[in-house]
């Protein structure tokens, strides 16, 4: 009996031990640092730091002004100029080029046929175009990565679609590479035709989902001459063009201007996936061989006759955005039923956000390689700007005020034209700008490396990581390096962003170290453990002792 009393007397000790351990309990997951803040630690990178060259100078010989198969191709001083053989093919049509030009391009021989000078003014008037649908950064059952890869900026590979001129050969650079061949890229190419041309555009649906073509703002009849669907809208016309099938649309545009084309199947998703492009109708002029495709948009190396009369240079600027959640839907499965479910039913466009913003298929810093506007003083430059994002853009060109000459392809009365420094475009709108590089304090403040970008600030970041998005530059030739890169004020200016870890948000912006983590406080952890152990041991001792005393 006195034994039992001893055990009862020990019970409060257990509680004292528990109270003590609670009082001395260490912080297990986060704590304050005390008087001095932690020294900091090296950032943890998911892969070794690699700094890319700002310009990989693959084809310096493509920059010079040259004549290919009799087609005059203007100088393009960019890091990545357009392939002049492609341009010759796009101007003449695949039926009018030399074997050398054909072999130097990756375009199918029936992709573009130009024939029949119907009005006798020295240029072809029947244009037959074939478009395919391609996928970039899609899923593959053969590796955990995506295929074919297309980086919109260092390390960023969102799933995307694009229309493309009908191609031939491999979709990758070579058979050891996963990288998309240069002609497979975003955005969908700018299509250029002449006013009055009879245009037959065939959609050859090479993709695994149904698609159509819809011509937005381009003069076209509701039905084709044979009574077929000509507006591309499945709810008012024919069923969409199924995978493996084709359909030909017919246009004979009576008005010139900067227009659009896009897929009209599940338009919200398919347009945002990239199935949209600029469609330019050029004024009818004699001997007007227009460059039917401008792959990747940007500099037009063979402008139409009317443009050449008024302007020194012409650029197509196509602004696009990507919702990373929509882009992901094509990267997670290789079962087309599952992809369709994820994209069309699970994904909800009304809960959409935009994460990546591109100018001509690239986000900064890759825009520096092919989306610069290059100028000389006292020039007149034509900019055709299209917005196919679903948010508005507000483009601002540093150091310049340009004049808006056309809205949605319709000329503005010259007396009413507005010269300003922010050009706002809501979804699907286009403006044509007349940029004058006259250093008069109004149109231009002189030569420089002038940024131009969307002033809706989410547009100048890559998934929130700035600088990125649609930032590009207006660079004067005197400030351009031999490789087509701007000569900026410091040599290492781009090193921070030309890495695989910057847009992964793994590098501190200004310092070298992160605030980091604190070491565990072992002394207190051990003390706490001992107290808990003592409490448990004592409790067991009491229970066993009481049991023993009872028996």
């Amino acid at each position, binding site marked *: 009996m006195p034994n039992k009393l001893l055990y009862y007397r020990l019970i409060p000790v257990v509680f004292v031990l528990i109270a003590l351990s609670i009082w001395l309990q260490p912080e297990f997951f986060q704590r304050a640092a005390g008087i001095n803040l932690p020294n900091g630690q090296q950032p943890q990178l998911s892969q070794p730091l690699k700094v890319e060259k700002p310009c990989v100078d693959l084809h310096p010989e493509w920059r010079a002004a040259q004549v290919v198969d009799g087609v005059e191709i203007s100088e393009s001083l960019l890091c990545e100029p357009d392939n002049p053989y492609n341009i010759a093919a796009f101007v003449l049509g695949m039926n009018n080029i030399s074997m050398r030009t054909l072999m130097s391009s990756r375009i199918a021989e029936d992709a573009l046929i130009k024939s029949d000078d119907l009005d006798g003014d020295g240029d072809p008037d029947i244009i037959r175009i074939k478009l395919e649908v391609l996928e970039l950064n899609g899923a593959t059952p053969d590796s955990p990565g995506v295929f074919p890869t297309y980086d919109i900026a260092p390390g960023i590979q969102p799933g995307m679609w694009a229309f493309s001129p009908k191609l031939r050969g491999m979709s990758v650079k070579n058979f050891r590479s996963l990288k998309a061949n240069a002609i497979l890229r975003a955005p969908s190419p700018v299509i250029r035709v002449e006013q009055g041309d009879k245009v037959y555009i065939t959609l050859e649906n090479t993709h695994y989902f149904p698609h159509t073509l819809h011509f937005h703002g381009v003069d076209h009849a509701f039905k084709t001459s044979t009574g077929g669907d000509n507006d591309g809208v499945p709810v008012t016309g024919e069923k969409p063009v199924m995978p493996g099938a084709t359909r030909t649309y017919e246009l004979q545009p009576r008005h010139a201007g900067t227009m659009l084309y896009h897929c009209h199947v599940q338009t919200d998703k398919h347009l945002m996936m990239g199935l949209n492009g600029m469609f330019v109708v050029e004024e009818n002029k004699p001997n007007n061989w227009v460059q039917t495709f401008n792959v990747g948009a940007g500099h037009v190396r063979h402008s139409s006759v009317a443009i050449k009369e008024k302007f020194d240079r012409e650029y197509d600027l196509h602004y696009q955005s990507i919702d990373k959640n929509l882009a992901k839907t094509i990267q997670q499965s290789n079962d087309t039923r599952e992809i369709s479910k994820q994209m069309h039913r699970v994904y909800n466009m009304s809960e959409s956000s935009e994460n990546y913003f591109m100018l001509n298929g690239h986000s900064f810093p890759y825009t520096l390689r092919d989306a610069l506007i290059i100028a000389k003083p006292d020039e007149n430059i034509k900019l055709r700007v299209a917005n196919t994002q679903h948010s508005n853009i507000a483009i601002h060109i540093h150091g310049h005020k340009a004049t808006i000459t056309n809205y949605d392809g319709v000329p503005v009365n010259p007396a009413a034209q507005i010269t300003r420094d922010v050009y706002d475009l809501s979804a699907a709108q286009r403006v044509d700008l007349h940029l004058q590089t006259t250093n008069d304090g109004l149109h231009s403040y002189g030569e420089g490396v002038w940024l131009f970008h969307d002033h809706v600030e989410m547009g100048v970041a890559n998934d929130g990581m700035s600088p990125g998005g649609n930032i590009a530059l207006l660079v004067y030739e005197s400030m351009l390096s031999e490789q087509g890169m701007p000569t900026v004020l410091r040599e290492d200016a781009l090193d921070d962003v030309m890495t695989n870890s910057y847009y992964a948000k793994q590098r501190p912006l200004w310092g070298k170290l992160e605030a980091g983590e604190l070491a*565990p406080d072992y002394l207190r*952890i051990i003390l706490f*453990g*001992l107290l*808990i152990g003592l409490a448990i041991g*004592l409790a067991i*001792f009491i229970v066993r002792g009481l049991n023993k005393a009872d028996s």
Partner: protein
Amino acid sequence: MKSISLFLFFCFITSPVFAAMNHGGMIMDEKGMIMNHNPDKLPKDCKEISEDVNITIRGGHKFAKDFPGKMFTYDKRDWQVPPCARVNVTFINEDDIRHQFMIHGLPGYMYPKGMFTIELYGKGQKTGSFIVPSRDYTYYIHCEVSQHTEKGMKGQLKVGKGSGDLDSILGLSAPLTPDLYPINNTHYTWLALIFSIIIGAFLIRLLTGLFTSKHSEP
């Protein structure tokens, strides 16, 4: 003639702006300002100046380099002077931006708002004086430029024994509302915890074994 007279007029009007002004307790020039400079007026509780203490305090970005995560501070943040001392402060600003040496809590009847301040508009230095009362007290020194105090530019002046340390002075006292940092736990952390619990439990067995064996002997 008109322009000459205008010129003379402006010289007359503008000349006092460039010269040091002393009004309302402020000595100002184009380099900075001293507020409530007091080399001679004694606080009520002091019969005489006990001692002349000269202190030189430097402020700037570079002094914060030893304190990770902070941006501006003084070279020394903890000062002590005897009661009734005359403190002659030479404040040196080593940055090209504005900094202040501002002290609070002095007697309001001789230092309006209880403050003595030296403000420098850029790189440079100024010297000013104030006389402290006799009680043991810790006075608050800081730079009031937006966020400079919070990001490190804070110090204290103890008169006599002082009245304890102020919070969040770099290298001296912990912040009152500290940041919480994640703890880098590894499997060793959890092993240490489990082992110490087991050892604790066995310790009880050891202790009780000794205890019970002693008691069962007789």
